[in-house]
């Protein structure tokens, strides 16, 4: 199949940037979306143009490095990561618009690459359990109900790709933050730091310039790992509880 892509090109953080149109021929339906970009980049390189910069690494949907907005949808038309999206999801002759994640907290570095360091700083603000190496008790001393463990796992599968922020019209990082609050908050090990965690993480979330949540649910629908929306409600409950105890 032959397709046309319109790609956001921006030399660096200071550049204004614009959409540029390229044709890509002989695209196989079995190619992944990123392999299609590889093919385009080989063309660009040979013609002496600057290839399109995009983040990617594992290409199996787990590292969270890749992610672009395709035709206005984070990671494109399927609920998966960009690397796991295949060209069979598009028609021959399609015009595909490719843009970087847009959010105040995710400044563009180059082309489709953005800086997601804000996510790491939210984790630094409390997204952990303080368990110094060597201090752990025997693992089976602490039974965890299977249901809780499974729910915690579900939230812990967040890959930190940032699709939730890109899909949210408010550029809110609430689903990412809530996934971690839920993962750790559901486990008995996570209880001692539960209040300080939610307070720290929310403060950092806001400080990074993410927007507020308006509960419309675009984040969950765009999340390649299906992090459920009720995690945000849990975050809200946890913060309410912490504030009520005067912990802020």
């Amino acid at each position, binding site marked *: 199949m032959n397709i046309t892509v319109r790609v956001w090109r921006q030399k660096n953080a200071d550049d204004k940037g614009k959409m540029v149109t390229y044709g890509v021929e002989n695209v196989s339906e079995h190619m992944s979306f990123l392999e299609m970009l590889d093919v385009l980049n080989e063309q660009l390189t040979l013609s002496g143009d600057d290839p399109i910069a995009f983040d990617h*690494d594992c290409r199996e949907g787990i590292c969270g490095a890749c992610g672009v907005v395709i035709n206005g949808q984070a990671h494109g038309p399927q609920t998966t990561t960009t690397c796991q999206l295949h060209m069979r999801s598009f028609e021959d002759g399609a015009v595909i618009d490719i843009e970087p994640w847009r959010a105040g907290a995710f400044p563009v570095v180059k082309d489709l690459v953005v800086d997601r360091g804000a996510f790491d700083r939210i984790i630094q603000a409390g997204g952990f359990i303080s368990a110094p190496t060597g201090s752990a008790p025997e693992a089976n001393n602490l039974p965890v109900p299977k249901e809780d463990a499974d729910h915690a796992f579900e939230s812990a599968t967040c890959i930190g790709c940032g699709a939730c922020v890109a899909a949210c019209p408010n550029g809110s990082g609430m689903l990412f933050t809530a996934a971690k609050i839920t993962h750790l908050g559901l486990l008995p090990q996570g209880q001692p730091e539960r209040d300080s965690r939610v307070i720290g993480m929310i403060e950092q979330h806001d400080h990074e310039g993410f927007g507020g949540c308006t509960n419309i649910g675009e984040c969950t629908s765009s999340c390649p790992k299906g992090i459920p929306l009720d995690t945000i409600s849990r975050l809200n409950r946890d913060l309410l509880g912490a504030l009520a105890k005067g912990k802020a």
Partner: protein
Amino acid sequence: MTITEPYKNPSEQFHAVGDDIHDAKAPTGPIEKRWDDRKFNAKLVNPANRRKLSVLVVGTGLAGASAAATLGEAGYHVKSFCYQDSPRRAHSIAAQGGINAAKNYRNDGDSIYRLFYDTVKGGDFRARESNVYRLAQVSVNIIDQCVAQGVPFAREYGGLLDNRSFGGVQVSRTFYARGQTGQQLLIGAYQALERQIAAGTVEMNTRHEMLELIMVDDRARGIIVRDMVTGEIETHTADAVVLASGGYGNVFFLSTNAMGCNTTATWRAHRKGAYFANPCYTQIHPTCIPVSGDYQSKLTLMSESLRNDGRIWVPKKMNDERLASEIPEDERDYYLERIYPAFGNLVPRDIASRAAKYQCDAGKGVGPGGLGVYLDFADAIDRLGRPAVEAKYGNLFDMYAQITGEDPYSEPMRIYPAVHYTMGGLWVDYDLQSNLTGLFVTGEANFSEHGANRLGASALMQGLADGYFVLPYTLANYLADGPYDKVDHDHPAVVEAKQAVEERITTLLAINGTRTVDSYHKELGQIMWDYCGMERTEEGLTKAIGMIRDLKTDFWANVKVTGVNEELNQTLERAGRVADFFELGELMCIDALNRRESCGGHFRAESQTEDGEALRHDDEFAYVSAWEYGDKQPTLHKEPLEYEYVEMKSRSYK
């Protein structure tokens, strides 16, 4: 008088042979007490002095993140580096199946000794007993540590931890978190690391790639890195350097590694004098999704836990064009169950991979190009019901469907082996220190405890063992003699290292040839796969060395690297990595040529039993090949391996 020429290995046209080496730190005494003795005898560092001691940790996978977090927690001044935009993206995250630990929660006869025994045997007697025993010992602490961090392992209804059995062993000692165990363990280590970053003990440098090692007065004292956003070439010095930069499977271009995985950190250290051990030991994983076209950029692993319930087969007839569902039961060859009745579909990875290759070579392969075998879940779905299969493997099935566009619940999966893990790496002693003083190497980057073949669910175990429980002791022992004299940035060794990096980048950008970096990488990968892949021959390896040398010369004359250094330049990043892969690829072939035996992940066609099984030559090759870099040719140093506890015998899974 006749002079008998001493026997010369044909590989010696490509390398010299140096003196044998020994691990000077190798402990003695009863094996159960060796690690305790080493810990007791290791020098300690007063907590108040730790702040004055600095460590650079390259890589943030399980081995790197756990080490950086633990060292930071202990109070050392740590700087951590990764090429990704966040430490959480290191490729440990993609490990699916699980992590082994000798907890014996299943009461099935597991023990530290059995894990030790299985690992030595699984590694085809090419690993050190002491190291492996230590690994088995600390395995139990790893699970405790990870649970305390909040890693959501799978649990039983009673709330206790669940286990499953995993390729190559007969006990259930594998802890898992659905098909995403690596992700969960890495997130645990990552969170511990972020906690230290917040505490100010670890300084994180994301999007920074190590390009050179700095040696001052025969000690590793720093690294040169490139800021991948600005292109700035930075110098970082410290009292010790830890490389946890992962394996080199991407020398094959197509592998299950992440696109960015590379050998540059370890190769640069090698060129500075660190020995590279057993580079030819490559693990080819039997259960990957087959290649679909020449645009393919990577291969995707399907966890081998699938082999617990899936049955592997090919049509008995050659070039059978029928759909799987049209092939009746008696025309199917469940070849693993047939050849290896004791282990069946659960034979170790190298055996399963080679068996698949033979079936395909014999014209029985399925799918595009005949490069695939079936992995069939029809029986499991009948026996357990679809919901149970979904609960166990749902995410893997989804992934398969997403990539191939086929439904594995109704049609069997097609799988084919792919490069997955490299057992070789920088040579280290019992303290995980390379032959370069002050350079420590952990995780997949070192030549590790896996010998010639790694068992399933042991990579995660080793990465975390090194980072959480081994390195913090052995590195402290080294640092106890520090702090070492401060290294100024205008020290001749620093200036030399920095200039070398800058010159290399300038050269790459100036060639402005006609071929892309990827086209070279793909060609190199094809050479490696054809001649240094699942089956190796003297003729093929000799040919490959010539081809790699020619391709490398062509690369330095004709590669096209666009853009400039002072920007985010992904082509330049790849070019530097591929340049190092050429040199490593050549060394792999030389190592494979030298080792005229078959063991684990290294199979020499010349060395097999009558029925086609790997044939070791313990009399001649029971040693670690440690290669010293040379401008003209490498030098081989042999570290003889001795087995006091596990009797060396040939592996049999029949």
